[in-house]
Each structure stands twice: as structure tokens, then as C-alpha cells.
């Protein structure tokens, strides 16, 4: 017997058996399985109701703790700069929108300029990662080829080195290509699947898709490209959504490489723009920083709010057996 099955048995000694073979349609009780106990509809419902209220109360309370720092930031963004630290309470004494108007116009370009730049970088990275990483992941998850383990190890290795020691050689490389101060150093690597994190992520998800599906497709005469396009991708919506959400957020927040590769103010992105509100050697505009941080969180929050519904469009809901 293979490792996996013995493993699964040891971790789940009393495995409940789902239908092993839907074609046969036979269902037998597993070893040690018990008959369902009688259902008690009324008592259960009341208890469920109470339980649900308690659960929501707990989740809301926990949510408040989670959000406290963000609420504080939101509150502070409405306070005049001078009062942020002198009156650090959660409820501002009076609402002052000037941090938003000042912050929006404080830099060389209106803040929307930096939002658009960030959006461009994000869009490019998003497309790049989704395409290139899923391709590579398919190879690692479903294809047999020589040196697969080795290449997989190389792939993982490439995310184990801190960026600080590769950024200088990278800068040299990109400046030879005359890519400095363009979005290319930020986007092209994503098109070439250098974010190995996502390859690994998708490999794990692809391996969760039952092989019977692509075997059936092979029998129908599908080649790997079609299996990838017509089976793997549609069935991996959660993985793709995860990749998209993460790429979005990481790129949106990535400070260091954007700082190094973008040298002209008109190319600056949100994280760089935000830093320029703070000067540890002189005077900082904390109010503007908080206000623009809130502004820049809104697109990410909306992206997540809409993106997260694709997280749940997995194999579980697509109706495939």
C-alpha cells in the first residue's frame, strides 16, 4: 500500500467512507461506524438558535478587537495633526476632513495619480501570476518529467533568500536592460513566474482535484493544454482567487522593490507616496498619512469583498461529482 493511504488511515482511524465509487452506487458502513441517533427536531432548533446568537456575538466582539487599531487610525484621520497624539481617544471631539483634502493634494501629484500607478502595477502582476504560476503548477502537479523533484526544490529555494541581498544585483540587471523607472521590473518577473509562492500554492490545490477527472478527459482525447484550460482552471477557482487576492495585496503594499526600481516621482506608487508623509528627521504629517492610508485601503478592501466570493466557488459548488 502506498504511503498516503496508510497515513490517512493512521490519522483517521475511524474513517467515514464517502462513496468510493459512484458508479457502483453501493454504500456500506465503515468499520466502527455507528448508526445515526434519533433526531430531536425541537430542542435542537432552540439550541441552534441560541448557539448562533452566541456565535455572532463572539465573532463581533472578536472583530472589534481585531479592528481596534484600524478604528483608531480612522478616528485619528479626522483629527487635526496636533491633536492626534495629545488626545489619542477613539472618538474625535470634532470631525475635520482637512487631512483628507490636504493629504490628497500634499504631494507633487494628486493622490489619485499614485493610486492609478499602483493599480497598473497590480493589474500586470495579477495577470502575470495567474497565468505563469498556474502553468508551472500544472507541470509540477500533473506531469511526469525528469528532474521534477530537483526543479521543485530549486523553485522553493528561490523564495528563501531575503530580497535585500538580491535587490542590488537585480537593480544592476534591470538597469542594463534600461528598465529602471518603468513598471517592467515589477511586472515582467511576475509574467515569468518568479513568485514561486503561488506555484506551490496551486500545486497543492491541483493535487486536490481528483485524478479521475483528467483521466476521463484523456480518454476523451484531451491533451494537457485542454485539461489545464478546461478542467484544472475552472475547478481551481479558490486557488486562483487566493492567488489574485494575495498578488493584489502584496503588490499594493510592496514598498522595497517599488522604492528601489521607481526613481521618478511621476512613477511613484501608493506605498512610496505614503512614506513621504513621514520624516523621522523633521516634521511629519501624521493626519495625512492616516487619511491616505484609509483611502488606499478602500480599493483593497473592496477587491477582497468581491474576490472572496470566488474563494467559495470550488469543486464543492460547481456540481461536478
Amino acid at each position, binding site marked *: 500500500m502506498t504511503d498516503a493511504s496508510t497515513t490517512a488511515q493512521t490519522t483517521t482511524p475511524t474513517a467515514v467512507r464517502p462513496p468510493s465509487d459512484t458508479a457502483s452506487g453501493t454504500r456500506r458502513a465503515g468499520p466502527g461506524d455507528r448508526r445515526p441517533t434519533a433526531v430531536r427536531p425541537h430542542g435542537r432548533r432552540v439550541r441552534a438558535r441560541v448557539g448562533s446568537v452566541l456565535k455572532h456575538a463572539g465573532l463581533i466582539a472578536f472583530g472589534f478587537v481585531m479592528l481596534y487599531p484600524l478604528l483608531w487610525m480612522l478616528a485619528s484621520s479626522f483629527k487635526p495633526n496636533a491633536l492626534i497624539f495629545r488626545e489619542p481617544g477613539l472618538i474625535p471631539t470634532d470631525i475635520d476632513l482637512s487631512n483628507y483634502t490636504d493629504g490628497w493634494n500634499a504631494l507633487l501629484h494628486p493622490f489619485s495619480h499614485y493610486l492609478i500607478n499602483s493599480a497598473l502595477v497590480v493589474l500586470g502582476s495579477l495577470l502575470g501570476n495567474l497565468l505563469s504560476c498556474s502553468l508551472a503548477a500544472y*507541470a509540477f502537479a500533473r506531469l511526469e518529467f525528469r528532474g521534477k523533484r530537483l526543479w521543485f526544490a530549486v523553485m522553493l529555494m528561490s523564495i528563501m533568500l531575503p530580497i535585500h541581498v538580491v535587490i542590488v544585483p537585480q537593480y544592476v540587471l534591470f538597469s542594463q536592460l534600461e528598465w529602471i523607472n518603468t513598471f517592467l521590473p515589477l511586472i515582467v518577473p511576475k509574467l*515569468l513566474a518568479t513568485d514561486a509562492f503561488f506555484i506551490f500554492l496551486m500545486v497543492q490545490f491541483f493535487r486536490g482535484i481528483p485524478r479521475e477527472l483528467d483521466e476521463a478527459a484523456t480518454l476523451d482525447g484531451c491533451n494537457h493544454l485542454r485539461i489545464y484550460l478546461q478542467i484544472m482552471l475552472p475547478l481551481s477557482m479558490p486557488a486562483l482567487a487566493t492567488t489574485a487576492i494575495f498578488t493584489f495585496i502584496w503588490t499594493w503594499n510592496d514598498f522595497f522593490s517599488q522604492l528601489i526600481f521607481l526613481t521618478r516621482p511621476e512613477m511613484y506608487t501608493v506605498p512610496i507616496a505614503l512614506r513621504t508623509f513621514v520624516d523621522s528627521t523633521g516634521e511629519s504629517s501624521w493626519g495625512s498619512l492616516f487619511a491616505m492610508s484609509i483611502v488606499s485601503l478602500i480599493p483593497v478592501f473592496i477587491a477582497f469583498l468581491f474576490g472572496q466570493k470566488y474563494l467559495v466557488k470550488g469543486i464543492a459548488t460547481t456540481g461536478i461529482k
Partner: protein
Amino acid sequence: MSVIQELSRGKQAGAVRKKGDGRWALLFLAPWFVGLALITAGPMGASLYLSFTDYDLLSAPEWVGLENYTRMFDDPRFLQSLGVTFTYVFVSVPLQLAAALGLALLLDKGMRGLALYRSVYYLPSLLGGSVAIAILWRQIFGADGLVNQVLALFGIQGQGWVSHPDYALGTLMALNVWTFGAPMVIFLAGLRQIPQMYYEAAAIDGASRWRQFRSITVPLLTPIIFFNLVLQLIEAFQSFTRAFVVSGGNGGPSDSTLLYTLYLYLKGFGSLDMGYASAMAWFLLLIIGGMTVVNFLASKYWVFYDD
């Protein structure tokens, strides 16, 4: 015989059928190979070379052999950073993953307002490395912060946690756990990847929710748990931004939050000793690589692949 055994028979069959997809692999891996050759390998190789040199960024590197590597073990701050990092990784990663898995299970399905809860819990992760984090964290763990205000209600006089060498690392770990939203999202996606038919069948067989959880959810989620574990370990070892922002850039107070990568950065860019920083990076790669190999070896005993 269990379904799992039958599934793994399928796996064997598949393995036999697919021998040698070399050309297809080349096609699918083409972008990655190009990226590896052109963008990843060069700078990595360069940093490996630089780790054997004395390199200050401002003038040409000079070959010094293994000196950077031997110097590390006489450097008390290096050893301090190793200790801080191991504590950080081995305390905060399990806590963060447990929180992420717990909340993901709770927020999986069958509840009103799911989308909102998920988004709210995810929000803290969005702040990333914002400079605002340092201030927000002081509002919680500072001498007059939220924690001490709550403690005061119980008559306990707290102290400045964020700036005390004995507790600062704890607040940094709390910050890491606070952003459990990222692994939570991956768990959520993983939960949705489990074929519904298994649950239906189990329900017909009369298995309780708990049994379903233990016998279907957990084994089928192991690849994702494994993924999160590997990735969070790799990430935690390289944690930089939050420690940088919260400590004001120097791993203070008194080196108590001097994470490995933060020290590496201070050496490379602060002291302009990029040769040493590169050596530190490659030593870190050895640590993380070793840890990952152990992880993969161990995974054979607990991770279940449905192929």
C-alpha cells in the same frame, strides 16, 4: 477497504499511465524557466558570490573567502538575532495557523454575514508594512495603551509592553498572529476544494459533524495545512517589515526584536557591509532549506494527497 485506499489506487494507476511528459513539461514550465534563468538565477548567484567578498556597495567587491561566514559566529548580535528569530518563528507561526484554521472553519459556510466577517478579519493583513502600524501598535501595547486600560479596570498597573526588552518580542508576535487573515483565506479556499459528495455520503451514512470533520475535512485539508505551514515558516524566518516599522528600524529596545532579516538589512544597507549580509542570507537559506526538507520528509506521514 476504505475509499482512501481506493483513491490511492487511482493514484498508482495514474502514475503508471503518465510516464515521461517531458515536452509538455517544457511547455508548461517555459515561462518559469525563462524567469529562473534571466531574473532569479543571476541575482541569486551574484549574492552567493558577494557572500565571499568584502562589498560595501560603493566600491568593487574584494574576495575574502569564507571570512564573512566565520565572522558570523563571533558576532554577538548575529547570535542574538538567531535566538530572537527562532523564538519568533516557533511561537507565532503555530499560533497564527491555529487562529487561521479555527476561524476558517467557523467562517466556512452556513452563516449570515460571512462575507463581512471574512473581510473584517482579513482587514488587518491589508495594512502590511504601513508605517502607521508602529503607532497603532503603541495605542494597544504602549504604557497608556488599550491593554493597560483594560488591565486598569481590574486594578492591575500595566507597563509599556511595546518598549520593554522583555515583552517587545511578544507584542511583535501578537502582531503576526493579528494578521492571521492571510493563511485563513488559503484555508477557506482549501475547504471549498473538498468535494461535497464526500460529506453527502457521510451524512447518509449517519456520521456526526465531528466525525465528518475528523475523517473528511482534516485529511483532505492536510495539503493546504502543509502548504500554509511551509510557507508561513519560510515567511516568518524572513520577517522584516513589521519588526522594522515597530522597532523604528533597529530591532530595539536593546536588540530584543532584532529579527534575522532585520539585522541582515542593517548590516547590508546601514553599515554598508553587503558581503556580510549576503553571507547571512545564504546561511539563512540553509536554515530555511533544512527546515523545509524536514517538513517535506515529515509530510509523508501526515499529508494526504487525493491523487
